[in-house]
């Protein structure tokens, strides 16, 4: 079976030979035309376009972008800020890196369109500290764009002025959370804010209304404004419009990033056909479909239920390979599409060790502000680390589950969910491995790659 | 060897000597009894009893350890304690009678000994002569009469203490002592009916009673009266317990309900006098019982002292024979005192109404019936 066809709209020029990240090259490929057109349209029309398109945020939560824009408090008289969330820190996700490195102007154009649509006074691109090159490229691109009048004062000759600055993070996963990001941008510790009352749309950066959008989302905005919202809805499936970029990593033949129409490709197609299947002599064991915080899927398990297709309810009975890669389907089977980071694990991986690795990440990245995640994430890490290095007990599985259950829903930000879901799902799907770990470890071959 | 040298002393020498002898013998005996009481009670309760006391200097003498273990030195310690410890007189008492009471207690206790024979020897006249301080005809009556005065010490002590428990103790004591005196007196009458055969000069002398139990071999007069008159012996025994305030008749004292009974307010030396008096009563009472019913100083029924003395060639030396008699007599008394203590740790105390019941409704009729029975029996036999 041939690999399904990619549909690259965001990554249209990524890895294109000869395509450089400078302005002339971008202009050559029709860059900033959309912006030029957009600034002539009423901003509300642009917002409506986006709303119509049904674009869902690509940062991980999948919140409809149009709705988010609609929530912005425009009556307070306070300036509105837009922040590009380029703090791409979810393990397994690496799509934004390529946009920023290879096609920065696409992002800048999308950002400027969004700024114009929302009457934004000032925009920031919050980029990960781990991407110094990206920051430099963006700064370079911004300088070019600014010089060309696409950014800064009187854009494209209009009255509208908006500048974009690059703001570098310094290695904190929590800055991917929008309020944490805002705090960080304000020059503080990236402690997420409590909502209510600090909804970014109302009390965001400097207590002003603020829009925080993912890099990919803003690139989609450019596409939507270019082609119209209706056209966008035709891509992908209803409610999961547009394309999705999947970042496949781990144990597949061809890891990398692939852009497909949302929901038009299944997990099996993605892994077996697009990515070339498991490494020689191995079998897939598990896959995390949406970044490391998404719940894991175990190969061999079946998902059954009813789903809505158009107006009808249709029964489904899927294996892991059959799951369509869209927000709703993945959500339906108890995991999430997230940021599209697909991490594949084959049969050489011990799940306890994999979880130990994930827990180590989350305990390191917890901001330490609110109790459940601060203490819970470290505790889970201590348990899994102890299991791997020290003595594992059979009751540890239940303990881990119990600890993980005490975190989600009770924290200030979604980090609580992010750090507990892996544990919950690992225990739920590989509980036997956890319970038997002490025994298994005695006889285990040295792992192909140690994970902790 | 004879005692005549002694009788050659003038009376004014003899009387103090005898008095002193009584005191010097009875006090240690009473003390020994208290010691014995403690050891016996201890042994009966699977305890060792006092076995620690020893004076440091004596402890160097080898062999003293055994005496120490027997608690001999406890006597000295107790005596010393009673003598030297502070002797309190409570403020609320009637001081004169309070001090008088223990003295009165001592008088009958020491006096009665005078008429009790301890043994016998064969005098130079070849006659069996009692070892006795005052050989009076009315012997037993004297004992009864004088010892009946002992009740006053209890009454006085209780009354003078001017306090609740002693008073109740003394009231009980007076009633109890009067009640049992009757039965006691009645119980000994058969004995004297028996010995005062018609035609004899009539006597209440205890020596004569022993003499009537001193038959040699299987003779009618070699049987001790305890065997021929067991009921009398029993009544006398019970009455004796009551008269000496011993368990199970220790109504006047009864620690359980009256704290200490008549001597609750007493301490130290005065208190010790009461106890010496009680033990004296016990000794004398036991002595009388032995004389009346257990053949006195005769070693065995049918084996009188003079026969034994003869076998041992002691008959010629009155001193040795007297000593032998005294030894046998004292042995019996000691055994009887042991019996007192044995009973004490065996029987629970009677209730006061039970005491009165036993005294008047059981013992007295029994004593009267006993008397009538023996009177008739003796009359028949002697006919």
């Amino acid at each position: 079976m041939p690999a399904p066809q990619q549909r690259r709209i965001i990554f249209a020029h990524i890895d294109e030979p000869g395509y450089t990240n400078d302005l002339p090259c971008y202009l050559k490929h029709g860059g900033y035309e959309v912006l030029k057109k957009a600034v002539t349209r009423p901003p509300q029309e642009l917002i409506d376009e986006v709303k119509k398109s049904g674009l869902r945020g690509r940062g991980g939560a999948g919140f409809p972008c149009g709705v988010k824009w609609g929530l912005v408090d425009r009556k307070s008289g306070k300036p509105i800020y837009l922040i590009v969330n380029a703090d791409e820190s979810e393990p397994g996700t690496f799509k934004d890196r390529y946009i920023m490195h290879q096609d920065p102007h696409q992002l800048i154009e999308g950002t400027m369109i969004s700024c114009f649509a929302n009457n934004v006074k000032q925009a920031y691109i919050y980029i990960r500290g781990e991407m110094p090159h990206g920051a430099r490229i963006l700064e370079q691109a911004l300088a070019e764009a600014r010089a060309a009048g696409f950014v800064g004062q009187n854009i494209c000759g209009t009255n509208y002025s908006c500048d974009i600055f690059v703001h570098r993070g310094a290695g904190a996963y929590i800055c991917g959370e929008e309020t944490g990001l805002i705090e960080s941008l304000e020059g503080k510790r990236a402690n997420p804010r409590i909502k209510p009352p600090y909804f970014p749309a109302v009390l965001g950066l400097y207590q002003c209304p603020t829009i925080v959008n993912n890099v990919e989302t803003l690139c989609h905005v450019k596409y939507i404004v270019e082609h119209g919202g209706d056209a966008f809805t035709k891509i992908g499936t209803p409610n999961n419009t547009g394309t999705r970029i999947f970042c496949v990593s781990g144990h597949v033949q061809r890891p990398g990033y692939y852009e497909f129409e949302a929901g038009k490709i299944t997990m099996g197609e993605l892994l077996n056909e697009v990515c070339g299947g498991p490494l020689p002599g191995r079998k897939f064991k598990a896959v995390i479909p949406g970044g490391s915080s998404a719940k894991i899927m175990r190969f061999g398990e079946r998902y059954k239920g009813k789903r809505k297709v158009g107006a009808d309810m249709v029964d489904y009975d899927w294996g892991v390979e059959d799951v369509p890669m869209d927000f709703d389907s993945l959500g339906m089977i108890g995991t999430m599409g997230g940021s599209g980071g697909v991490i594949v694990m084959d049969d050489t991986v011990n799940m306890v060790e994999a979880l130990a690795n994930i827990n180590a990440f989350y305990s390191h990245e917890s901001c330490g502000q609110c109790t459940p995640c601060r203490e819970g994430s470290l505790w889970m890490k201590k348990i899994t680390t102890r299991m791997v290095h020290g003595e594992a007990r059979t009751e540890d599985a239940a303990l881990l589950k119990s600890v993980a259950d005490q975190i989600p829903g009770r924290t200030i930000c979604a980090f609580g969910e992010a750090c507990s879901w892996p544990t919950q799902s690992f225990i739920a799907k590989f509980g036997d491995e956890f319970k038997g770990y002490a025994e298994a470890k005695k006889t285990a071959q040295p792992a192909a790659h140690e994970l902790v | 060897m004879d005692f005549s040298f002694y009788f050659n002393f003038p009376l004014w020498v003899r009387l103090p000597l005898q008095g002193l002898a009584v005191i010097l013998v009875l006090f240690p005996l009473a003390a020994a009894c208290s010691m014995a009481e403690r050891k016996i009670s201890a042994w009966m309760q699977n305890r060792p009893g006092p076995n620690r006391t020893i004076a440091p200097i004596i402890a160097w003498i080898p062999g003293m350890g055994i005496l120490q273990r027997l608690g001999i030195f406890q006597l000295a310690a107790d005596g010393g304690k009673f003598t030297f410890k502070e002797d309190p007189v409570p403020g609320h008492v009637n001081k004169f009678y309070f001090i008088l009471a223990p003295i009165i207690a001592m008088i009958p206790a020491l006096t009665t000994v005078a008429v009790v024979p301890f043994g016998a020897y064969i005098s130079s006249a070849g006659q069996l002569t009692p070892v006795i301080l005052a050989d009076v005809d009315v012997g037993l009556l004297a004992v009864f009469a004088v010892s009946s005065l002992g009740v006053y010490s209890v009454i006085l002590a209780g009354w003078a203490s001017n306090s609740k428990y002693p008073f109740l103790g003394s009231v009980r004591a007076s009633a109890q002592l009067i009640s049992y005196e009757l039965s006691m007196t009645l119980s000994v009458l058969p004995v004297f009916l028996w010995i005062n055969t018609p035609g004899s000069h009539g006597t209440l002398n205890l020596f004569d009673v022993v003499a009537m139990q001193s038959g040699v071999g299987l003779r009618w007069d070699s049987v001790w009266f305890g065997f021929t008159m067991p009921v009398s012996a029993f009544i006398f025994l019970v009455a004796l317990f009551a008269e000496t305030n011993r368990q199970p008749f220790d109504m006047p004292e009864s620690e359980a309900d009256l704290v200490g009974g008549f001597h609750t307010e007493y301490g130290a030396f005065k208190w010790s006098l009461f106890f010496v008096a009680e033990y004296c009563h016990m000794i004398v009472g036991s002595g009388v019982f032995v004389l009346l019913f257990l053949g006195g100083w005769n070693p065995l029924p049918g084996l009188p002292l003079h026969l034994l003395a003869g076998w041992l060639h002691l008959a010629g030396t009155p001193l040795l024979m007297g000593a032998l008699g005294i030894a046998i007599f004292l042995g019996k008394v000691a055994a009887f005192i042991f019996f007192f203590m044995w009973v004490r740790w065996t029987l629970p105390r009677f209730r006061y109404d039970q005491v009165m019941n036993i005294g008047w409704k059981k013992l007295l009729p029994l004593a009267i019936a006993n008397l009538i029975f023996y009177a008739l029996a003796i009359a028949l036999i002697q006919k």
Partner: protein
Amino acid sequence: MAVIPVSRQPLTLLERTYLPQIAGGLKTTLKHFFSPKDTMEYPEERPAIPAGYRGVPTLVFDPHGREKCVSCQLCEFVCPPKAIRITPGAITPDDPAAHVEKRPQEFEIDMLRCIYCGLCQEVCPEEAIFLQTQYSTTGHTRADFVNNKQKLYELGGTLPDAHFKWDKKKAAEEGGNAH
């Protein structure tokens, strides 16, 4: 409640005289008279202290010679007769037990007040106070009966201690964080 009449056997004449019973009693006491003694000859023989015996309350050291009491004063609080009096104090930083931070400056138990109830032992969170086997307290003055800290440790000595809570803490402190 139902009343169940119990008919009693009427006593026989012999029984009513009470004499056989007396004889039986005499026999029993005589038997005891000759039976071996049960008494323990105290100063030479010592009783075997049973487990859980509640003797004089004492303070104990742990096997490393650290005084276990941290002067939390719970025993002082719980003591029914108010026999305990503690003056808390800090441990100086140069002390080997500095990581414990607190110890009693003075610890007095008035044995004239103590009722040996053992509540202090029960309440002690540090397992530092124990009612041990010491059972005789003697003295000539009232002051002799007030056991001060030194006396309490002399009486208490060292108690084998399985968990080494504070040692683990010290080790953690020295080992630092396993990040």
